């Protein structure tokens, strides 16, 4: 959710148990503005909080002109001092998946993963143990990248793709209607499309190229990995991801107000298929 309106928008997700203490709100309000001007971001977003055992990480993201491609992630433990997270490369993301358990709250902590490998062939095979260490800072960066890729969503038509390929906010977006807001196909993954490429020409025939350039939630596997609920009558639509427990998206139908936040342990819910 946008940093400059955080104190107002955080109330929209309060019903999901996401609360910032007044002290944190005050600190974020100041420090995010400083972060924005120091790094010359166009916009700065409060991304959420990752709960550690000893301490929590507050995460903020700054974006440039293209909201999808130019994104940098920062973390802080006191909401005041922000540190830049290393980029989550493919290799880092692969190794981070091996780390088990909760975040500790110390960015320099190292998770250890012991992998047994078979060396040699036939009877000469011996097992060799290889220890892989994963730094918590790297794991944090890759978990954030994973969450962004898996569940970061926006309402349909809130962003458009310009002919030059830039993804920018749609200035004429007036919000979803209530009946649209009740359908999963009105929300889209804010990532480079994956499933869109697999669609047939017939399916793509009715799509608007500048709007429907993203994957919709309807195609998500497994079905039912989103919990869509209305609050305040139909004045607020809330989507909670069941894959990443703690990811909450809100949209006020009929207005430009939408946003999302993640407050959780930073662990993917792999038990999802059993739980539905």
């Amino acid at each position, binding site marked *: 959710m946008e940093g400059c309106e955080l104190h107002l928008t955080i109330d929209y997700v309060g*019903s999901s148990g996401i609360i910032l203490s007044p002290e944190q709100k005050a600190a974020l309000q100041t420090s995010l503005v400083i972060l924005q001007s120091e790094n010359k971001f166009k916009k700065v977003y409060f991304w959420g909080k990752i709960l550690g055992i000893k301490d929590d990480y507050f995460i903020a993201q700054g974006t440039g002109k293209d909201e999808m491609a130019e994104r940098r992630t920062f973390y802080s433990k006191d909401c005041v001092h922000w540190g830049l997270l290393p980029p989550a490369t493919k290799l880092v993301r692969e190794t981070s998946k091996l780390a088990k358990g909760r975040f500790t709250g110390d960015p320099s902590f190292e998770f250890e993963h012991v992998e047994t490998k078979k060396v040699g062939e036939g009877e000469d095979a011996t097992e060799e143990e290889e220890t892989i260490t994963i730094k918590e800072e790297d794991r944090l960066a890759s978990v954030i990248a994973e969450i962004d890729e898996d569940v970061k969503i926006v309402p349909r038509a809130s962003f458009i793709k310009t002919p030059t390929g830039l993804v920018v906010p749609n200035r004429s977006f007036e919000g979803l209607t209530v009946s649209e807001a009740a359908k999963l196909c009105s929300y889209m993954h804010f990532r480079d499309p994956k499933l869109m490429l697999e669609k047939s020409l017939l399916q793509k025939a009715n799509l608007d190229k500048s709007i429907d350039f993203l994957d919709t939630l309807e195609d998500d596997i497994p079905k039912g990995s989103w919990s869509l609920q209305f609050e305040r009558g139909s004045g607020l639509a809330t989507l909670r991801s*069941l894959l990443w427990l703690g990811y909450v998206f809100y949209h006020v139908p009929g207005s430009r107000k939408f946003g999302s936040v993640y407050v959780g342990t930073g662990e993917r819910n792999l038990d999802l298929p059993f739980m539905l």
Partner: protein
Amino acid sequence: MDTPSINPKDQEYISAKSYLLQTSTDSGFNLYDHLSTCLTKILDERPENVYDVFEDISKDTKRSKFTSNKGEGEDADQDPEDDAETPLPNLMELAFYFEQAGVGLNREEVIRVWMALKQLVDTHNLQHVRFWGKVFGTEQSYYVAEVEYREGEEEQEEEEEEAEENADEDTEKEEGEEGEEEAEEDDTPKPDFKPPPVVPKEDKAGPNKKTYFVCNDPGKPWIKLPLVTPAQVTAARSIKKFFTGRLDAPVVSYPPFPGNESNYLRAQICRISAGTHISPLGFYQFDEEEEEEEEGEGRDNFVENLDFEGIPVKELVDPSLSNWVHHVQHILPQGRCVWWNPVQKNEDEFEDEEEEEEREEPDEPEPEQGPPLLTPLSEDAEIGSMPPWTSRLSSNLIPQYAIACINSNLWPGAHAFATGKKFENVYVGHGHKYSQDNYSPPSVPAIMEEFPSGPEITEAEDPTPEEEAALRAARQEAAEAAEDMEEAEEEGSDED
């Protein structure tokens, strides 16, 4: 005619006036007086454009006449109500503290929950009410209230409910009996298998000490959750399912869960309460009088310690956590808080079944034991290598006025705060226990043997012709020997 002096016009005038003079049955006033007051008022005040404001004048006049006949009575009623002790908690104050800790729900929602709790207090005779927390479902969420009835009140309500339930059960029973008779006619084979004895539930104790009400939205009716049985607790431990938000939804799972979602919710609530309801050390103490009565068995009653002075916040957030205690009984693996011996009851049954070959008397099972009530959190088991609780101050900038807040890592979403003499627990989450490993459903039990394998059903090798011949010869010999004996006997008898 007796009244010739009155002409028809006058007659009409009189009847019209008497009509206008009729007093209204609702308010006790009549239109004639009202119009005359209005007109007097207009003529006195001479307002401009009187045609346009006539309604207002009429309304004003009516309002000035209105006196509430309830007014005095209400005031008199309200005063003692304010003085009387209400079980309604000061939710806003608690919400304030939780907000400092950065947990809980937002303020507007708390107010709505508060109103809903007030409604609950007004409709039931309760001794104690708490906002237990919120459990998210996929379609709707549950708001949970934890209540204790005044003594005797619950029975009354239950009796009413049971009367209805019994009616249903009776019909079911009859159907069941009929079914059995039919089965006998068909002479279907009956399985040898005897299910293990059902562990009886604890009534008004252990997991059923408190009653829980839930609603999907503050303002919707509160629904009382059924009592939890040990079987439900043990089954709930081995499954992990999302709540849907509909209490009557079936719980489709393996191993099968006995009951629907309301039972599952109730089982999870009592597990969460047992695991995460904590209070500062010394806030509660055991009742000294009861101590003597119950020896050996774990004590399950405690009273508020009136001399509790409060523990400094710095000591509360100490990582050893020895200043916090559990004030809800631990639930044993059996699903009860007090262990129940399954063997005792079985003895009579064993005597009845004399035909059955004497089984080995099952060993006296080891009584399951859990930590006693008011055990410090420092005794809690770790989750893998992870501490089960995380404690912190609400503010590092102004620690002098900070409060202590503590989050459960075992049940993510369970929080508690304490400052001075105040403390509270709340749960906001999906209602699942944390485990480092992924959930894997228990494997299917091994297939039972159809028959005990014995000589009757094992296939024997056919005898060879030689063996048959030998057997035949042996038989013949035996027969001859018998004949000889008979003859000998006969001879003997002849001699006599």
